[in-house]
Structure formats: structure tokens, C-alpha cells
């Protein structure tokens, strides 16, 4: 099992979401994040134009079976890319164990993207 954490542009979120469904990901969680670094984005407050170091993005968190990893990463890269600086990052982690609280199922069975579920698996 793997976990993908992806930082994507807000403007590309809808495209990425669609691509993930097409790649067989039935469920993921996401939240707004603020990044702070050397990069800047133009911001206007009350007519004052300035370069803001605070940059808003979405962070996506997806736990999936090992064999979905390649297609999912490709889907995110393809859908989330504009070619400009600031398209985001993808991080991949190993997951030691997973449990479904309702049934007590463990391992890959506990994940949303079931092996043979509804013909979604590719």
C-alpha cells in the first residue's frame, strides 16, 4: 500500500479530481494549504499591489494499492501541469497497515479501491 500526497494548483483541482476518478481512485481527502517561501504571487489589497510570499494550494492525500501507483501519479501529473513555475509536488510513502473500522478488515481489503470492485480496477 502506498500513500500519495500531492500539492496542486487550485485552478487545476477540478481537472486532477476528474483524472483521479478515471484512474480508479474512488476516495481521497484534500485541504487548503498555505505555502511560504521564495516564490511570490501578486496580490492587491485596497489598491496596493504587492508580491505576496503566501501561496495557496490544495493538498491531496490518497492511499492506494501498489499497482495503482503508476497510473495515479501519471494522472495527477498530466492533469495538474500548466508548465509554469508552481505546478506543485507529489510525494509517495509506504503504508504499513490499514484497517476498516466497521468490519475489521485489514490490508488492501480495507481500502476504497477494492481489487474487483465495480469494474473500476484497471
Amino acid at each position, binding site marked *: 500500500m502506498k500513500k500519495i500526497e500531492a500539492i496542486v494548483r487550485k485552478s487545476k483541482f477540478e481537472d486532477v479530481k476528474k483524472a483521479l476518478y478515471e484512474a480508479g481512485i474512488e476516495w481521497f481527502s484534500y485541504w487548503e494549504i498555505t505555502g511560504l517561501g521564495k516564490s511570490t504571487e501578486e*496580490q*492587491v*489589497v*485596497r*489598491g*496596493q*499591489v*504587492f508580491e*505576496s510570499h*503566501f501561496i495557496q494550494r490544495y493538498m491531496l492525500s490518497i492511499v492506494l494499492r501498489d499497482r495503482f501507483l503508476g497510473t495515479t501519479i501519471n494522472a495527477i501529473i498530466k492533469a495538474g501541469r500548466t508548465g509554469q513555475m508552481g505546478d506543485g509536488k507529489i510525494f509517495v510513502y509506504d503504508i504499513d497497515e490499514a484497517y476498516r473500522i466497521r468490519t475489521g478488515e485489514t490490508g488492501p481489503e480495507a481500502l476504497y479501491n477494492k481489487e474487483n470492485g465495480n469494474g473500476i480496477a484497471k
Partner: protein
Amino acid sequence: MFRMTKRFINIIQGFYKENVMKHLYKFTSVFFLLVLLPLFADAAPVTPHLNTGDTAWMMVATALVMLMTIPGLALFYGGLVRRKNILNVFMQSFMLMAVISIEWVTVGYSLAFGSSTGALAPFIGGSHWFFLHGIHIGDISPYFISHSQPSGEIINGSPVMVGTIPHIAFILFQMMFAVITPALMIGAFAERIKFRGFLIFSVLWALIIYNPVAHWVWSSDGWLARMGALDFAGGTVVHINAGIAALVMAVMLGKRHDYQGHAVPPHNIPFVAIGAALLWFGWFGFNAGSGLAADGLAANAFLVTQIAAATAALTWALLEWFIGGKPTLVGVATGAVAGLVAITPAAGFVGVSGALIIGMTVSVVCFVMVAYVKTKLGYDDTLDAFGVHGMGGIVGALLTGFLASPLVQGGAKGFFYGNPHQLTVQTLAVLATLLYSGGGTFVLFLVVDKLFGLRATPKEEAIGLDEAMHGETAYTVFD
């Protein structure tokens, strides 16, 4: 039988005759009284009566002006600061409402609107109305604009005139002005002032800066009033006064530690918009109430208030559209407030064309001030209390000198209506307020800072004044 009947008829006839005559006599005397009494009116004692329509409107207007400080201004400023400082801004607004109301009935009203004797008379009121001593519920307001009546008292051969509302209603209406003026300054020192120092400073400021300036402009003894300075609802007394004090405070307190030379994005723009909308709404009480009557002058003030706010909001949006590419809600809210500030001194003196000119001009001036001049000069006026209220007030006061139309109030003519002298008087009123309020605030800052401390520590600033000063957080997590 016949005799008896005749006698009976005689009795009835007599009775009838007597009564009719009596009634006729009564009627005639009443008629003569009604017709002739007015001719002798001067001789008869006159008692002034309050006008219930005026009184009802003034009570509503007072409540509207109260709404401007809390929650109007509190939301407007609270939304503009960062999330760690919103409660502090609310707290400052609420505490000013509490403290200045008490200051007003104990000493403030007497110092601002009372009269003193001798050389001080044009500059500050006396102590005779401390604790509203001697003011009774039946008293009629000695202050009036368009509705007046003889009080029955005659001094030096001419009748003394009074207004048409209870004296208490006038005191209350003015109380709300005294509350909002120091509250406007919150915008300049937001995010970095100690709460205790702020409270002591604000009370002293109300005492020794607000009260005299209100006396100069609005008391019948005031030296600016006698000179003919026009300030219908407080452009000088409220907005220039608070605006310049705000600038002095911002410079003296110094920049926020993490100030980057530009505005910090507001943490809650819907709050900013709701606050601005409540300010706009309350401003109808502020301006249309300042005629102290429910009449055509009040309706005109209402109209020009609306038109100036609308024009200024639109102008600001267009400026942002052309310059920054997008019109912003914060910009429109700011523009509307700037328009309302600028029409304040003019509301009882200009018509619609004046309101259009004032609304457009003030937005351009304030926009340049906020977007360019402040950045160039580098002072940290957190929420542009000077840029909007100070500059807006100055624009309004000066334009009143140009645009005051005799069609609105016969006695008030501006530069464009053949009275250049009015502009001189307006300029003098602006300069006097800038000097006194600026200088007074400078001295007051030094004293309060020395005795109690005004600047929050870097640590307090970093964790936010909500947590540091009040031990509360608005959104349950820190920022």
C-alpha cells in the same frame, strides 16, 4: 287645564330662551378669545412644546449612530485585521462604547456643549452640566438647526430660541458621536497596542481633544462656529479629528514587527463588507439626524449621503478595475466609507450635484493616499484610518467650502455660489483641527506611553492581541 298648559309652555320657553342666550354668550366669548388671543400672544406666557415627529426620528437616528460603532466599525476593522487580532478590535469598540458613554454624561457633554465664561468661552464648555446636573426630562434642547421655537425667555429684548426635541435626546445623539470618534482611531494602531494603555489614552483623548474641538465647531459660543465654519455632521469634529490623531498614533507607536510595507490581506472579507454596510446604514442617522429634526433638510442629508457613498464606491471600483485589473469587495467597501466620510460635513449644505462631485473626488484622493502615498512614506497605518477618515474628512470639509448651496440652507454659500470667504473659513477649521488634534495627541501619547505603556511587546504581537490581551481566540486555533 288650559292655564296650566300655558304656564307650562311659558316656563319651557323661558328656560329655552335663557339657555340659548347663555350658550350664545359662551360661544361668543370663546369665539372672541380665539380670535383675539393671538393678538396679545406676546403678553401671555409661552411654553415651548416638543415636536413628537422630530423626537421620534432623533431617537431612531441615535440608535442608528450607535450601530455604526458596534457592530459596524468593529466588523469593518475586525475583518481587515488578521484572525489573531479580531477580538481585540471588537473589545476596543465595545469598551469605548461603555467608557465614553459614561465620560459623556459625567463631564463630556458639559465640556463640549456647555458654556463657560470669560476668555475660555470660545474654546471649552463649563462644568455646570457635569453629571447632567440641572437637565430635566421636560427640558427642550437648546441646540437646533432648522426647527426652532421661542422658549419664552427674553434676553436683551430678543426671544431666546430653542429646538423641538428633548434636551436629553440631543445629549444622547451627541454621545454616539463622542463614542465613534475615538473608535475610528482603532484602525491606525490595530494589531500592536496594549489594551490598558489604549483605554487610558482613549478616555483622555475624548476629554482633552474631542470635547474642545466639538465645542469650537458645534457650540454656539465656539470660535469656529462664530466664524461660520460649516460642519453639518462632524467632518471636522469626528473625521479629521480622529484621522490626524490616528496618523500621529501610527507613527509614534511604530510599525508592526512583521510589517512588510504593504497591507496584510484581510482575514474575513465578508465581515469587512457587513461592517461597511452597517456603517452605510447607520450613517443615515449620523447625517440625516444632524439636522435635529424630521424635515426636508433631513431628507436632503439622507439623499446626498446615499449619492456620495454610491458615487465613491463606484469610483473606487473603477479605479481598481483600470489600475489593478479587478474590482475588489474590500475596495468597494473602503470607497463607500470614504464617500460617507466626505459627505458628512456637507450633508446639510449641498445638493445632488455636490454629492456626486464629493463622492468622486474623495475616492480618487483616498485611493492615491492608501495605495501610493502611504507606501511611499512608509508609516504603518494598519487599516488606513488616516487615509480614509482623515483625508476623506479634509476633502469633505474643503469641498463644503466650494459647494455649499444657498438652495439647501439659505445662509450657507460656498465659493461656487459667490462666497470665497467660506473656503477660507473651512481651511482654517481644517488647519486648526489638524494642529490641535495632532499636537495634543502627540503630547498625550508621550504621557500615556511613559506612565502606562502603549506598545505591545513583540511576543504579544506574535501570538496575537486576542490571546495576549484577553485570553480568548476567535476561531479556536492560533494564527
